[in-house]
């Protein structure tokens, strides 16, 4: 096996997000998370459910449809908590507040983006992780312009109905894996991808980020995982387009 690429470390880091989740829907948004979710299901998380991106639930064998999940059932599965989504983020702050709606003043945005989509319902009801293919100070900001996905501070301020099912397991970027396993629920670095320094991550983050000495590296893919990524799940190499070497 040739050298592991950054994109492949990202795939493994995304796959790890779903470890131990059991029989829930893995809802990846983005190419690398999708490859990661497929890898997780083919290896250590065989009970995960996966869609084709629309309403069909895919079986493990290629071409097999095992179920049907139209939007309205998808939304009940969200509020029932039987899902772990990995969303994108145009902005993300240290508390895990996420923005995909617009940049600038909401009333007349400098740049209109997608809109809130399902970020509010996701974050309050099922575990919501994030995928950021380019870790930069433009994404990791002091304050997001519009809170779509709810972070730990905003959930706490909104009260027990907001915190009851709220959880942000991790944030995977092209540089590192981050989480909120700190006393005040602010972001920290869980692992650096091999080849990345703590200084690089600090410089790419728009707020002061605590990085412990001796923070571990993201784990290596196994030989079997690399074969699955390269030969079975993503032979076209789409992962390298999302995270160029």
């Amino acid at each position, binding site marked *: 096996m040739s050298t592991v690429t950054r994109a492949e470390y990202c795939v493994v880091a995304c796959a790890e997000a779903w470890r131990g989740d059991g029989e829930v829907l893995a809802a990846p948004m983005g190419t690398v998370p999708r490859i990661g979710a497929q890898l997780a299901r083919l290896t250590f998380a065989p009970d995960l459910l996966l869609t084709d991106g629309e309403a069909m639930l895919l079986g493990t064998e290629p071409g097999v449809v095992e179920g049907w999940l*139209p939007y309205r059932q998808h*939304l009940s599965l969200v509020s029932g908590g039987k899902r772990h989504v990995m969303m994108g983020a145009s902005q993300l702050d240290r508390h895990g507040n996420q923005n995909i709606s617009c940049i600038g003043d909401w009333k007349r945005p400098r740049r209109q983006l997608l*809109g809130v989509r*399902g970020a*509010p*319902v996701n974050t309050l009801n099922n575990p919501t992780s994030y995928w950021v293919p380019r870790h930069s100070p433009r994404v990791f900001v002091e304050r997001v312009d*519009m809170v779509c996905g*709810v972070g730990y501070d905003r959930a706490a301020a*909104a009260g027990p109905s907001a915190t*009851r099912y709220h959880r942000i397991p991790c944030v995977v970027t092209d540089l590192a894996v981050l989480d909120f396993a700190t006393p005040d629920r602010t972001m920290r670095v869980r692992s650096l991808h091999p080849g990345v320094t703590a200084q690089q991550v600090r410089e790419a983050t728009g707020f002061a980020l605590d990085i412990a000495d001796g923070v571990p590296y993201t784990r290596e893919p196994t030989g079997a995982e690399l074969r699955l990524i390269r030969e079975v799940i993503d032979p076209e190499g789409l992962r390298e387009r999302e995270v160029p070497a």
Partner: protein
Amino acid sequence: MNPGDKQMSPEEAVGRIESGMTVGIGGWGSRRKPMALVRALLRSPVTDLTVVSYGGPDVGLLAAAGKVRKLVAAFATLDSIPLEPHFRAARERGDLELVELDEAMFMWGLTAAVHRLPFMPVRAGLGSDVMTVNPGLRTVTSPYEDGEELVAVPSLRLDAALVHLNRADAHGNGQYLGPDPYFDDLFCEAAEAAYVSCERVVDSAEFADAGSPQTLLVKRHSVTGVIETPNGAHFTSCAPDYGRDEAFQRAYAKAAADPGAWREFTERFLTGDEDAYQTAVAAFAKEGA
């Protein structure tokens, strides 16, 4: 005796929509949108609309034509092209009043309207800026032991609904044959008057051959008009009859980014009636072939 024949032209359907009305549009993003009816709306003098939609190019076209005073939506997207260019431009110009709701809040708002309830309680929205940008949203406290404080999503009652299905009979029964019903039945039931366009009007006896009973999504009691518009969801998808016209959508998005190009696009595709549109689309496809 059979139930009434509700067939009408796109112009007749749109002729019943008045300026200032609240109009719900079915489909999702760039999927199974009632585009022939939207195009008819573009040609009509109707304006000042409140549009309620899981937004796609329906929202973009109506906003570009200045028909929308207020938009109720969780997003607007072309799916394969993430950002709807006209929606984006309208927001950045500041000439679109937006009621930005979460996708689930939107569904429960429609559901409340269907059930003639003033609101539905949901967890979604708490802690997010959906509560900030919609200062009229209220919370409600559970009267039971849990005492939970939840968001009261107000009913999204509609004056009119426009949806597009694969098949319908003349009486207003509608059948979808694609992978997802989206929320088209809710739109119809939440509206005072619903207009169902379809790829083909069929005899009710033909439904059973096309699909299982579960494909009979829209029931005639909730439908005012039936409009046969072949290729009527173009350029959005209408599986299994046809997929999204990606080449045309790219041309749409490209033209939308430039006022001069948009004028040309409008002149070429949107000045005539639906037949003229379909002829122009066929010519466009030939050029690309």
